[in-house]
């Protein structure tokens, strides 16, 4: 696959649009969220889903194809003895056979190549759909089994179970089950949703935190249940899977999930009698995990898919959790929380989002237009140069050997001495081109016979006929090219 082939793969609309829309809309959302400090975590997390929705919308509108058709046209010069055999097809007489002459033949070859980008889009769509479906349908028992979660019996950690029930009542949610995992690293996470939710603590976490701090971590996890973060995570991960070939999708997804963490922190603090306990717990956990070996990326990724929120997290741009200092600042700054959404702020944010998204679409369309122009020039040069060397806003297509001429001026080598008057049939009706000498006789060609001379192609409006004349005898209408 040469450079042209790669370009051809990239510029398939389903791939090209899905990538460009995601990139531009991500940039817009980033600018919006950075510049508008009043936007809350919930809105931010939803805004970061917008770039992930674009590719799926594009793929549904322009369905991906597994094959790309490429057309190659070649001009061959063949010397023929006579055109007597085709003369009778021309309706005007009298006819004279042409002397031996060169016939230029346009041959069109259509090749179908595998669309790598199309297949990638299909894989993304199928994998994303299957992932979402399996996560929603999967039984919570499967997730517990995979992650080796042991449910606590009613007699174990009774104070914690009571605390969770109390907090759940405050949040008006069904009290989730509580489980433990043997992991010695401090960690807590939630699996399942609604009544199937299970909050899981690692033995490491239960060992290093005091009761208040464990209750704070439990509140954080309960906030995730209340915020329906299971579904948020499933949707964001499924949408990311659709655009798995775009690195920015992962960044957008993890940014959205970080905002949900901050939201859960805020909600947890509201529940706690000692709000500082959450900050203490987070600080202790971060300190403890610094000294422990990290899990491999694959293990981390696979287990991360099953859990709604894990205290352990990846570091850096793909992290699903904010940095500790950001979280601590978030939960310890009452000002940040005191800014409540007003109707006006909501309208401003929505308007800004709309403007940014529209500008993103405009930029994308402008880029597509540039790309189309590029393609048109490319085609015209390929097809017409051998005949004319001169193009003026015209294009034509070859289909089954018939030529369709659009308005324009073109020049071809003329080897005759007599002025010519040419009539071109509408190729929808016939495959013939007529050439009429002023001397009073007609010569018929089929489409293989290219007329020689400099002509003006004049479409006859309200008629299926097109006239071609010498420039001298008929000036080109002003509206032509």
């Amino acid at each position, binding site marked *: 696959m040469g450079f042209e082939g790669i370009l051809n793969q990239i510029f398939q609309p389903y791939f090209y649009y899905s990538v460009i829309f995601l990139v531009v809309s991500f940039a817009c959302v980033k600018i919006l969220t950075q510049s508008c400090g009043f936007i809350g975590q919930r809105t931010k997390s939803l805004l970061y889903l917008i770039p992930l929705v674009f590719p799926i919308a594009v793929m549904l509108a322009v369905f991906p194809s597994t094959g790309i058709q490429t057309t190659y046209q070649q001009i061959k010069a063949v010397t023929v003895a006579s055109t007597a055999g085709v003369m009778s097809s021309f309706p005007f007489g009298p006819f004279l056979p042409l002397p031996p002459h060169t016939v230029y033949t346009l041959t069109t070859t259509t090749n179908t190549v595998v669309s790598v980008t199309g297949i990638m889009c299909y894989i993304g769509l199928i994998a994303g759909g299957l992932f979402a479906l399996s996560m929603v349908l999967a039984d919570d028992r499967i997730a517990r089994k995979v992650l080796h979660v042991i449910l606590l*019996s009613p007699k174990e950690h009774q104070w914690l179970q009571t605390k969770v029930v109390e907090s759940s009542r405050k949040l008006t949610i069904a009290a989730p089950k509580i489980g433990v995992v043997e*992991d010695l690293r401090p960690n807590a996470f939630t699996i399942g949703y609604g009544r199937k939710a299970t909050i899981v603590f690692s033995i490491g976490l239960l060992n290093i935190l005091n009761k208040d701090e464990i209750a704070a971590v439990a509140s954080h996890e309960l906030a995730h249940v209340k915020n329906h973060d299971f579904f948020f995570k499933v949707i964001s991960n499924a949408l990311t899977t659709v655009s798995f070939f775009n690195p920015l999708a992962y960044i957008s997804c993890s940014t959205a999930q970080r905002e949900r963490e901050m939201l859960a922190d805020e909600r947890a603090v509201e529940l706690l009698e000692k709000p500082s306990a959450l900050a203490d717990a987070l600080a202790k956990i971060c300190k403890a995990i610094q000294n422990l070996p990290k899990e491999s990326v694959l293990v981390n990724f696979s287990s991360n898919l099953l859990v709604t929120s894990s205290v352990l997290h990846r570091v850096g741009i793909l992290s699903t959790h904010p940095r500790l200092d950001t979280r601590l600042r978030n939960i310890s700054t009452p000002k940040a929380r005191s800014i409540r959404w007003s109707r006006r702020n909501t309208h401003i944010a929505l308007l800004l989002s709309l403007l940014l998204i529209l500008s993103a679409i405009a930029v994308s369309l402008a880029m597509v237009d540039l790309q189309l122009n590029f393609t048109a020039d490319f085609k015209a040069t390929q097809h017409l140069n051998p005949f004319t060397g001169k193009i003026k806003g015209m294009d034509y297509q070859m289909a089954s050997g018939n030529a369709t001429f659009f308005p324009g001026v073109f020049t071809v080598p003329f080897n005759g001495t007599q002025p010519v008057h040419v009539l071109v049939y509408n190729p929808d009706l016939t495959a013939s081109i007529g050439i009429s000498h002023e001397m009073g006789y007609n010569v018929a060609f089929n489409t293989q016979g290219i007329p020689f001379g400099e002509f003006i192609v004049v479409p006859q409006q309200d008629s299926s006929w097109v006239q071609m004349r010498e420039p001298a005898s008929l000036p080109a209408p002003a509206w032509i090219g």
Partner: protein
Amino acid sequence: MIVMRLHAMTEDKKPEFSQYNIDGKALEAFLGPLEANVMESIWASRKTPVTVREIFEALKKTRGLAYTTVMSTMDRLFEKHLLDRKIEKGRGGLYYVYWPSLEKQSFQKSAVREVLSSLIDNFGDVVANCLVDETSLNEEERSALKEQLNKNISKKK
């Protein structure tokens, strides 16, 4: 229930038998009922080393034990040097894996020796006489054996 306190083993990493329970059956004579269950389960396990979860799941079928109970029992057995443990890194993160520091036979031998040694230290010839009385020898053979044993025990002292 009569519980006899035995000398705690001070030597590092040597199994520690802190008690002898006269009413206890088999291992429960030396260990608490839970500890005995856990040790039996670990010895019976085909896979070594084992995690707390594996033993918990094995015991859950026969006894309704809680995970944290099994965990604290295994932790106690480690403290007594009856179990060894190390941190292992696996799919579930970092976790302890345990294995017995002695095979079952060696453990029993070691425990019985500890108890006997304690009895002999405290009661000497009475222990020898009692042991001989438990045998199926005739009177003459018993007298000879008692004399021999008492002599040897006195020498040891």
